């Protein structure tokens, strides 16, 4: 067992445990905090995979902006825990059965059809990391410039849409 593999297994355990914690905790704030931990773990995975830029974006955008927005809305609505409404008795077993089928299908397809091969090499040294960042910037602003600009329009539309949705309707007669 190499150091990389041990690190991977520990991080994978943390990721799965925090995802389950998000799923199972009754309080929505605990769920959000578990999800933040999960996002940070995934960011460490990105570092292991040699994608430092994506790791930083993951932490600032996902664990930072998006989850703060979530926590803000949870606290604004006071929706930490819903009163236990009447639930469909067959819903939980059915959902678990469907999830097991989904996992089994994914595993089956992976090991019989797709057979992904290859190994993740350890991330290069810091000097090479800066090179990879520079190269990624060049590709992003050269080959993918139009999608990048379209993304800015998408963000503008989302911002306007959110404001329009939240705004109080003025009744003009």
């Amino acid at each position, binding site marked *: 067992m190499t150091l*990389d*593999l041990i690190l*991977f297994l520990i991080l*994978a355990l943390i990721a*799965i445990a925090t*995802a*389950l914690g*998000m*799923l199972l905790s009754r309080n*929505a704030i605990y*769920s*959000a905090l578990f*999800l933040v931990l999960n*996002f940070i773990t*995934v960011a460490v*995975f*990105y570092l*292991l*995979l040699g*994608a430092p830029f*994506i790791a930083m974006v993951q932490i600032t*955008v*996902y664990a930072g*902006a*998006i989850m703060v*927005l*979530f926590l803000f*809305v*949870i606290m*604004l609505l006071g*929706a930490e825990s*819903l009163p236990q*409404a009447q*639930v469909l008795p067959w819903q*939980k077993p059915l*959902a678990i059965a*469907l*999830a097991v089928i*989904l*996992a089994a299908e994914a*595993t089956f397809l*992976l090991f019989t059809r797709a057979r*992904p091969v*290859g*190994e*993740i*090499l*350890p991330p290069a040294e810091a000097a090479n990391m800066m090179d*990879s960042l520079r190269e*990624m910037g060049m*590709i*992003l602003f050269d080959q*993918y410039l139009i999608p990048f600009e379209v*993304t800015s329009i*998408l*963000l503008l539309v*989302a911002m306007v*849409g959110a404001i329009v*949705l*939240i705004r109080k309707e003025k009744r003009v007669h």
Partner: protein
Amino acid sequence: MIPINYYIILSAILFTIGALGVLVRRNALIIFMSVELMLNSANLAMVAFSSVIQSFSGQIFVFFVIAVAAAEVAVGLALIVEIFKSKQSIDVDQMNSLKG
């Protein structure tokens, strides 16, 4: 040297947990968080693939996915706040009429 299979299996497990969250939970906010978890697991698989084929395209695609997710969260949370204002609840079982 970690085989890429490990990353894909981890990604499949996280995706399944997210799907289970969407199916089991009734709190609209937690369903939304589960969707984020599924997006995240797909991103993880994509970065793993791009790292194996030594290309940046996968990472750039993940960058765009994250930007779209940010936009989606802004609009989705606005919708949830609006639903809460009209129903006083974000239980998805209560959302059974088209007009509030």
